[in-house]
């Protein structure tokens, strides 16, 4: 470990109960995310991982506890915590470049901007387009792009605001497996260059273990932290897709998967299924005997 990096996000006794629901969606969440850390949130559906992300983003208000960014409590959404959503968040009436530059049309970013800042913002937009491989499509509109391209635009748009934290809510959930693989490499390269702090929600355990420094497993009903798994993998720049087939990687993936199964009731369902299979085997046995006796 490096000499104790500063804490970026601190979550203290955080709870969220939506109106009209008896069980809290989230209960007593304590978590600290360090500066420059990549944290993945995983868990069975309904464990509140997306809600946790939305609370960090300030898109939901906590029922109890608080989220602090650099020791200041989060009061609402702000440009220090940009979010990449799963889909439908690009502006279809703007082309790729205009989408990426969207935050430059907001007062929060132009209020006190000097000329050199404006110029460096223009350069940054083009640098991001190049980094994300969007150079050639910068005059296209979102509905002319593939799903993977669209998510790249969404990521570039979020990074354009130079957020303290990048929050990603199942950003690749709607992509096919091959595109997703490419996006993983892109994210790792980006993480290496930008050194941003990233909180990443996914239902794909492999994705979580491959990308993150730490994987947080959430358990449902009420949503709570089940376990936290530091990932021991080469640094982001040295990772390669083949790693996903290595024994050590599979072992780490299995530990996380087992925790999710244990907390989600999947194990219970699997046990029930194997009992059913056992029963039907036993039922069939008397039928098979007479046919065997005919020989």
């Amino acid at each position, binding site marked *: 470990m490096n000499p104790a990096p500063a804490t970026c996000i601190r979550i203290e006794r955080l709870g969220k109960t939506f109106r009209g629901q008896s069980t809290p969606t989230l209960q007593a969440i304590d978590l600290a995310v360090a500066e420059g850390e990549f944290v993945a949130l995983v868990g069975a559906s309904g464990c509140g991982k997306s809600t946790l992300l939305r609370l960090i*983003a*300030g*898109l939901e208000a906590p029922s109890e506890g608080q989220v602090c960014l650099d020791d200041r409590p989060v009061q*609402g*959404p*702000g*440009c220090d*915590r*940009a*979010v990449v*959503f*799963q*889909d*439908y*968040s*690009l*502006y*279809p*009436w703007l*082309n790729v470049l205009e989408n990426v530059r*969207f*935050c430059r*049309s*907001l*007062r*929060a*970013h132009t209020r006190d901007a000097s000329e050199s800042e404006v110029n460096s913002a223009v350069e940054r937009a083009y640098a991001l387009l190049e980094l994300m491989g969007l150079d050639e499509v910068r005059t296209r*509109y*979102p*509905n*002319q792009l593939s799903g993977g391209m669209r998510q790249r635009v*969404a990521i570039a*748009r*979020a990074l354009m*605001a130079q957020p303290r934290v990048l*929050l990603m809510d199942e950003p690749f959930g709607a992509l096919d497996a091959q595109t997703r693989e490419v996006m993983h490499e892109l994210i790792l390269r980006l993480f290496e260059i930008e050194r941003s702090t990233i909180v990443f929600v996914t239902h794909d355990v492999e994705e979580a273990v491959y990308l993150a420094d730490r994987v947080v497993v959430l358990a449902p009903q009420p949503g709570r932290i089940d376990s936290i798994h530091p990932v021991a993998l080469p640094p982001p720049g040295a990772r390669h897709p083949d790693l996903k087939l290595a024994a050590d990687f599979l072992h780490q993936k299995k530990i996380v998967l087992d925790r999710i199964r244990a907390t989600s009731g999947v194990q219970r369902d699997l046990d029930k299924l194997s009992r059913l299979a056992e029963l039907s085997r036993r039922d069939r046995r008397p039928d098979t005997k007479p046919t065997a006796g005919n020989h």
Partner: protein
Amino acid sequence: MAADPLWSIRGTLGGARYLAIAGVGFASLLGGWWLLAGSGLVDPVFLPTPTAVARRLLGWYADGSLFADIKISIGRVLGGFGLAVLMAVPLGIYIGSFRPVQAFFEPLMEFARYLPAVAFVPLVLLWVGIGEGAKITLIWIGTFFQMVLMVSDNIRQVPMAQIEAAQTLGANRGEVVSLVVFKSALPGIVDTLRVTLGWAWTYLVVAELVAANSGIGYAILRAQRFLQTDKIFVGILLIGLLGLLMDQSFRLLHRRAFPWLHLR
């Protein structure tokens, strides 16, 4: 030709063939009318022949009042409709964006849109007299309430992810409404206006039938007194044609103003 996409469900049809089939549709209407009127089975008072209608149109044009009538009718439609747009679009944006505004206005509008606009005619005459104001007010009553509800619905259909993305990029409330919500809903709003413009024509005729001394609707009313069925036909066809023209210009505007919607 088993693989012909022409008759498959939601199949494809080229622009030229579409136009040809649409032409056949109009031609069969005209042809059926001609046959029926020309057969002598129907009294021309009930159903004039197309030639009689065309002659009447030329006569209307010759006495110089055709374009004056069309102009005044279009002016009334645009006046009442324009007034409704100016009021309904901003109000609809507020209703669709802010819940308290919605709570205040939406039930009122839902109530008001069931009030029969035609029944307001005597009140309108009482309140604003029989001048141009009466026609414009009646068209406004007929379109405004529906328009407000439809625009607020357009606004509510803006995906939440678009709004939240702007918020997390640092947009304030005003910026979210003007830079995201309005822009995102605009194609839907233009479609709403196209649909409500059709209703404006309906109420124009009502207004001109009741209290007017000019316009296409008034011409129809006068023709009724003299049993000039052919002139009634001309008036009805004219209104249909003008409505179709305005509808098509809205479609053209849609394609020009929102090229990104029509790209693939």
